[in-house]
């Protein structure tokens, strides 16, 4: 029950915040049970098909997807990424456009994940 949680609230690229959250999530997953919640503009982090091209950015949704896949392949790794359904709906985003491995969560589930977290970083 007592897990570490990272909250993603902002869209990727426009601010560094989502990229920073992702960097911390990946590091946390290697060390402890980690959960992430993507809500409000944070849901855009999981949008598949991002194309940084020669911008210098890494592809953030692909990095998230790879972290989830790597974790599934490692029995000791405990990582869950929840995407807030209400935020998707408000933005007219179909869950089908998200990278694989993320889980949907409603208001109630989001609040429960937060309340169960022993500590939370907010991005």
């Amino acid at each position, binding site marked *: 029950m007592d897990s570490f949680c990272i909250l993603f*609230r902002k869209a990727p690229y426009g601010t560094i915040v989502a990229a920073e959250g992702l960097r911390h999530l990946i590091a946390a997953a290697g060390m402890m049970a980690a959960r992430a919640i993507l809500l409000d503009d944070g849901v855009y982090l999981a949008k598949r098909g991002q194309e940084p091209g020669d911008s210098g950015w890494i592809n953030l949704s692909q990095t998230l997807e790879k972290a989830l896949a790597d974790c599934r392949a490692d029995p000791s790794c405990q990582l869950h990424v929840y995407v807030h359904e209400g935020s998707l709906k408000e933005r007219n985003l179909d869950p089908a456009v998200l990278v694989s491995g993320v889980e949907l969560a409603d208001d*109630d589930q*989001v*609040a429960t994940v937060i*309340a169960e977290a*022993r500590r939370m970083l907010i991005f």
Partner: protein
Amino acid sequence: MSKVLLMIASSPRSMEAQRAFHLARTLHTQRRTVSVVLLQDAVLAAVGNGPAQDPDGLAMLVPRGVSVYVCEHDLTLRGFAPDMIGGAQSVNDQRIVDLMVADDTRTFGCF
């Protein structure tokens, strides 16, 4: 079930503060004991905002039994007197720390 303390620092109308207010309501609905500390620009939520101005915000939390604490330093800095707030309590830094580290409290923030 432990108590939850939400620390809010963003402007009341920002997505970040609105999300924190919404989360406080949901946690309260889940029958958890929820308190809120307002810091920085978030203290503006405690002045002049009746329910009519902000139906989803702070004003609905106080009547539901959510304790709302407002950083006195940040209120007076912005030109508001500590006695301007209805249903919320103005607190100094020491009291904010006491709230944050209280036993059985999970502190999350700043939103």
